[in-house]
Structure formats: structure tokens, C-alpha cells
């Protein structure tokens, strides 16, 4: 698994510093500072454009930061009032959290289940059909989130979308239904979009793991009379525990922060408050209402949730091999 799923990480052991030290021992100072010289440009960019903004979004979340404060640059500290407002807002519990957490749970479950099923199917196919399926899912994967979302919006379009027209032609409904106004059908479409875009990564990753499971083990189990279902749960799953952990955690991180897939749907940009999730809520409060402080507080919460998941991810990675 380490071979198939990790970028090659040879030569990280003891020999590295010996040669990396440079041609001679005389240039000791240069040798010692060289890694920092190499890192400096990248670190400067990351510090100014990623780390400082992260500090700043936290500082904004403690202020009443609106248009006036942007222009004047004067801070207007209000302590934790923004967070108080978030946690006392009924919208958080009835709309935003279910739309964020509930959606992420369903999306991760759907993506991993479909991805695994496709991986198992691909492993059972011959080389020709495996290439065909592989190329097809590559197309689904490569579709940019923005255009992919527009295509799904077009398919489910209320007036002329093919979904409504097909249902009507089959006599299943009398007149077109606007699927975007109802919160559940809205998120069902987002779910379809996210699973369609996300399962190829899971499938390709798990397929790489599957091909690494020793054939003898599976054959032995088959001889002992284990059916396909049991072979999957008793041999494949335990063997690929690490791979599953990684795809589940990464999918969770991605599905928690879906933005374009919601924002670009009809009503998704804040006009339909029922469709808000944490990310979109933060964005529309900031740039729609000019309440940058309140929006920052929501963004801080989203970041903390993702950070917690990331810690789990990093620990999983560290278990696997040294950085």
C-alpha cells in the first residue's frame, strides 16, 4: 500500500543529510542556511497570504467589522458577541448545521460506498473494460465544479430541464416542478453533484489498494467457501483500513466545505435562506450584508471543525510513515 499510494519517498533516511550537506565541509555556514534560503520565498508567500489572513479572520471575528471599519481601518472590538449571535440564532440549528453536517455525512457515505463499489467492479474487469471505465470516471472527475454544477442545474431546470420533461413524458407528473425551492430536493441535487464529482477519486484510490491485496489470500478464502460479500468484509476491508481512513477523512474535509455547488444553484446564493450551509452563510453575511465580522466568526467555526478533522487525518498519515 505504501508503494501504490504514496508519492515515492525513497532516500529520506540516513544518507540524505550526508550528500545534501554539499560538496565540502568548509562551507558549513552556507550548508546550514541553505534549506532556509530555499524555503524563504515560499514561506514568505504562505505567511503573508495564508497564515496572516488566518490570524486576521480570527481578529475580525471579535469585531463589529462592516464597511465603515474597512474604510477607516479603525477596530471596533466587541469580544465574543458575534459568536454569541451565531449560537443563539435559531437558523443555525434548524437550517445551517443540518445542511452542513447532515449533508457531509450523506455525501461521504455515498461517495465512499459508490467509489468502493466501482473499485471492486473495476478490479473484476479485464484490462480493456477497466480502461474504458477508468477513462469515463476520469471525465466525471475532471469536470470543473462550476461547469458541473451548471450542468446539473440545467438537467433539473424547472421549465425546460430534461428531468422534468422526462417525468412529464412518462406521465409521472402533470406540470413542471421547481426542484430548487424545496430544501430537501435542493440538497438532493447537491448530493448527486458532489457524489458524481467525488467518487472517481475514491474509486481510483481504492482500486490501487485492491490490486495490492495478495491474490493468494482471496483464493484461499474462496476455497474455504467464503462468498464475495464475506471476502470483501473479512479480507479486503481489513487490508485496506489505512486507504479507507484516508479517503473517508479527505472526503469529509471536502464535503464540509462545499461552496460553489450550493452557491451557484438557483436560490443558493442567499436568497433561499433554507439552503444555507456554513460556508455560504459566512459568505453571504460578509459580502451580501457587509457584516464581515459576523461572517468571519462563522468562517472561524468552519475552520475549527475542519482543523479537528485535519488533526485526525495527520495522525493517520503519521502512523503510516515518517514525514
Amino acid at each position, binding site marked *: 500500500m505504501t508503494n501504490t499510494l504514496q*508519492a515515492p519517498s525513497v532516500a529520506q533516511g540516513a544518507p540524505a543529510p550526508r550528500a545534501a550537506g554539499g560538496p565540502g565541509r568548509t562551507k558549513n555556514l552556507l550548508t546550514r542556511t541553505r534549506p532556509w534560503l530555499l524555503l524563504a*520565498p515560499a514561506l514568505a508567500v504562505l505567511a503573508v497570504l495564508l497564515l496572516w489572513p488566518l490570524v486576521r479572520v480570527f481578529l475580525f471575528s471579535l469585531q463589529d467589522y462592516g464597511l465603515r471599519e474597512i474604510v477607516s481601518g479603525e477596530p471596533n472590538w466587541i469580544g465574543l458577541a458575534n459568536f454569541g449571535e451565531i449560537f443563539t440564532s435559531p437558523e443555525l440549528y434548524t437550517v445551517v448545521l443540518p445542511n452542513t453536517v447532515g449533508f457531509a455525512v450523506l455525501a461521504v457515505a455515498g461517495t465512499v460506498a459508490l467509489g468502493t463499489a466501482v473499485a471492486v*467492479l473495476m478490479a473484476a474487469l479485464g484490462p480493456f473494460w477497466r480502461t474504458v471505465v477508468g477513462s469515463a470516471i476520469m471525465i466525471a472527475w475532471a469536470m470543473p465544479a*462550476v461547469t458541473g454544477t451548471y450542468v446539473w442545474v440545467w438537467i433539473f431546470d424547472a421549465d425546460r430541464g430534461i428531468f422534468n420533461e422526462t417525468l412529464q413524458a412518462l406521465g409521472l407528473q402533470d406540470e413542471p416542478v421547481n426542484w430548487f425551492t424545496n430544501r430537501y430536493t435542493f440538497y438532493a441535487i447537491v448530493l448527486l453533484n458532489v457524489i458524481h464529482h467525488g467518487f472517481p477519486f475514491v474509486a481510483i484510490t481504492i482500486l490501487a489498494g485492491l490490486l495490492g491485496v495478495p491474490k493468494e489470500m482471496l483464493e484461499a478464502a474462496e476455497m474455504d467457501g467464503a462468498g464475495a460479500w464475506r471476502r470483501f468484509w473479512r479480507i479486503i476491508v481489513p487490508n485496506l483500513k489505512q486507504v479507507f481512513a484516508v479517503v473517508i477523512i479527505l472526503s469529509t474535509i471536502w464535503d464540509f466545505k462545499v461552496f460553489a455547488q450550493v452557491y451557484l444553484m438557483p436560490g443558493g446564493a442567499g436568497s433561499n435562506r433554507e439552503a444555507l450551509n456554513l*460556508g455560504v452563510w459566512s459568505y453571504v453575511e*460578509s459580502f451580501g450584508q457587509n457584516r464581515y465580522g459576523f461572517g468571519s466568526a462563522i*468562517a472561524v467555526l468552519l475552520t475549527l471543525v475542519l*482543523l479537528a478533522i485535519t488533526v485526525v487525518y495527520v495522525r493517520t498519515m503519521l502512523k503510516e510513515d515518517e514525514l
Partner: protein
Amino acid sequence: MSVSTTNTTADVAVSARPEASVTPAVRTSRRSARKTRSAAGKAVLVVLLLAFTLFPAFWMLSSAFDSKAGTGGQQLLPREFTLDNFAYVLTEGGFDVFLRNSAIVALVTVLASAVLALLASVAVARFRFKFRTAMLLMILIVQMVPLEALVIPLFVQVRDLQLLNTLLGLMVVYVALSLPFGIWMLRGFVAAVPVELEEAAYLDGASWGRMFRSVMLPLVMPGLVATSVFSFITAWNEFIFAMTLLGGASENYTVAIGLKQFFGEHSNEWGYIMAASTIITIPVMIFFVIVQRRLSSGLVAGAVKG
């Protein structure tokens, strides 16, 4: 027995063996029946999977080439094949300008982040120094930060620098966004270059700089290409920052937000939207094919998704 599970001719051979008793012969024929059924099942699954996977892309293309897309009653194939949607999008639709903007932004992002990421990845892959692990952890963690959290402070920052509505502001942000993943991915490629080759260069009297240029650089080139493709896709697909930082300056729009203008108050020009979406998607697909083999390894090693 394990032979008979792998191919049918072996089944025949087994059952035709004179000393084979009746029971294994029955068992093998039952096996082959099950195998036909499982082959049929697999074929059905493959067809369903292909339909689900390819339908959106197919529908995008079909609508893009249909002169009557969006008028209702559309069939699976365009009723009247036309290139008019593309022609409109690329001229009056303004996508000639948006494509140029996106290409400029993507190119600068790719070049700047490739240089920065390569230098930094050599540092973390080849040297042992204080805080090295801390540095790697920071790079890994910083990728997970949601863009929604960065967009507010960066909007203020870019505004203070008076770079709102300019492509430069956007490029700077994209370099930062693609850098952590670039470093993370390249460090694997740098580490894979045998240390012995470096030592040989030193023995031949090369300086560190000479070694870097003549030994390291050519060997990590494939990795550099793969990483660059990822920064290209990041810059090409990015949506939140383009929408926020470019705001009203529609002459500076990138392709990802240029699509917005085909959405009308009451009706949407679906033929144009799908033609423009096709134009946006094609370069990404081409680049995906180029790096597809490295995808899973790179992404699992720590990733960002568009």
C-alpha cells in the same frame, strides 16, 4: 480447483479427465453457469455506471451543439446541429477576453508556484533541519483551511493594496493557494532522486547550484509537470476569489465567473451556457489525462480539491 476458476478451457479439461468423478464435473458446470451470470451482471453494472458517469458531460455537449437548446422538448441528440452557440460565446459573449484572462492568470500562477514549490520541496526533502517536521505539518494543515475563511481577510488585504478588480491581485492569491499542494507533491519526486547521483556530481567537482541544475532539475521534471498541471487547474477552476476580487470589472473576468452573464432575470441561455462550459472543461480534461497516472498517489499524499 483454482485453475478451473480462472478459465473455461480448464473446466473442460478437468471434466473430460477420465478419472474425474461425477461430483467435480457437476460442480464445474454449475461454476461456469454462475460465471456466465456474473459476466452478464458485470456488463449491466458497467453500462449503468457509464451512463451515470458520462451523462452530465454528454448532456453538456449535446446542448452546446443544439441550436434549439433551452426551448424545450430537447432530445438526447441535438435536433439541429449548430456551432452558433460557440460562435456567439466566443465573440459577443466575451469569452475571447475571459479565456485570455484565465490563460494569463493560470500561466503566471503555474510559473511562480512551480519555482517556489521546487525550491521549498528540495529543502524539505533533502535537508534535515530544525522545525522541518513542523514545517511539513504546517503545509499539510494549511491546505485544509476553507477558502470561505480566507476570502474575507484577503479581500480586505487586496483592497488595501488597491488591487481589487485587477488580475494581479488574483494571481498573487492563486500562487499562495497552489503552493502548499505543490510543495507536498514535489517533495516526493525530489526524494526519489537517488542521493548517489548527487554525490557523483559533487565528486566530479560540481557545486551545489550546478548539481541542482544538471542533476536534480532534469530528474524531477515529470513531477514538476504534474504539479504545474495541478496549479493550472486550481487557477482555471477557482471561483470564490475570482467572484469576490474581480467584482464589477467584467473585462477582467476569468472563465469560471464569465458564465454568470448568460443567466438572465427570467430565462437562461442554456445553449450559450453549455457551449461556454464545454470550452472551459476541455483544457482541464486534457490536462487531467496528462497527469492521470500520478493522480491517486499525489492526492492521497495530501490534497486539495477544486
